[in-house]
């Protein structure tokens, strides 16, 4: 635990070698320590996500949040960038994987790195966290209420992304899943399906679903915030990362 930290914008090599902006938060001191890639939600590279990134530095990690909309809107305000990226169809899965790979490599190249890097994402980033952990060599992954990891979209639903069921046998890192039982996407049945699939494939995972919470219960600036679920969730994340990224 370190409450003295530094945070700044950086540039790293993302998918295809593109120079991508990120927000890097680091605790004071020389390490060795693990790294965390923070995947922002669909509303973008916003203040709340940067606060989350800094919190991982307080927990003792170098944390890097890639600006997934940097290509579409370099230098734009986060909400304008999110609007531009949305109009352009969102972030392609393969580009996301490349950007997380680049962020993980950037974290591992830091002088204080112990070589271990985890990934965490919220909302759409929860799905993307699982996607990254199915595609890259990461040491831990956290999915916070990501929809469409499993589950069939409603009929006629013009979804721009598919589920990840075919990729789940390739999950390479232990997965912590945090969900709200009042959420519909993912609903409890999709969470149970994901649990069963991972159990069937022998992939280590740990899921917690909160009865009094719905979607986005970690979001302190939204009506969906549920303090008890969020507090417990943060404790579970801290313990999970200490187990898999510490040392």
């Amino acid at each position, binding site marked *: 635990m370190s409450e003295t930290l530094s945070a700044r914008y950086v540039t790293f090599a993302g998918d295809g070698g593109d120079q991508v902006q990120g927000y890097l938060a680091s605790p004071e001191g020389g390490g060795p320590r693990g790294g965390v890639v923070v995947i922002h939600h669909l509303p973008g590279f*916003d203040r709340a996500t940067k606060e989350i990134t800094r919190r991982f530095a307080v927990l003792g990690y170098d944390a890097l949040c890639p600006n997934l909309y940097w290509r579409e*809107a370099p230098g*734009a305000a986060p909400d304008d960038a999110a609007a531009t990226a*949305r*109009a352009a*169809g969102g972030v392609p899965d393969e580009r996301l994987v490349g950007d997380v790979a680049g962020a993980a490599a950037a974290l591992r190249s830091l002088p204080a790195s112990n070589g271990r890097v985890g990934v965490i994402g919220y909302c759409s980033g929860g799905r993307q966290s699982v996607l990254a952990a199915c595609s890259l060599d990461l040491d831990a992954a956290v999915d916070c209420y990501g929809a469409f990891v499993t589950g069939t979209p409603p009929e006629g*639903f013009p979804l721009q992304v598919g589920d990840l069921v075919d990729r789940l046998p390739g999950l390479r890192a232990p997965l912590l899943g945090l969900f709200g039982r009042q959420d519909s996407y993912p609903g409890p049945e999709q969470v149970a399906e994901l649990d069963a699939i991972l159990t069937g494939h022998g992939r280590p995972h740990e899921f917690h679903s909160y009865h009094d919470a719905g979607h986005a219960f970690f979001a302190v600036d*939204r009506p969906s915030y549920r303090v008890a679920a969020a507090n417990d969730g943060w404790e579970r994340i801290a313990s999970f990362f200490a187990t898999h990224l510490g040392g």
Partner: protein
Amino acid sequence: MCTYLTVRSALDGSAKGPGGAWFHVTDATVSFDHPVHAMAEHTLNIDLAAPADGPAARVAVELTAASARELVAAIQAALAAAPAALIG
């Protein structure tokens, strides 16, 4: 959830946007998803934008679903009330 749903439409008109300046809008983006500012889990979000002028060239609104339906009805009522010769 993040619905990922986006509907786009071409526009021809003007909007009053950043800095209080009027600008020509060419595109509308409509989604039902998490808002940036409105106190609701999901809202009907509309961007009236001029993408050629950069990401900041837009007017954004985030409406509850009920409000969005009322807006649609109001637009349709206004158009229906206008003389046909004026609206083409």
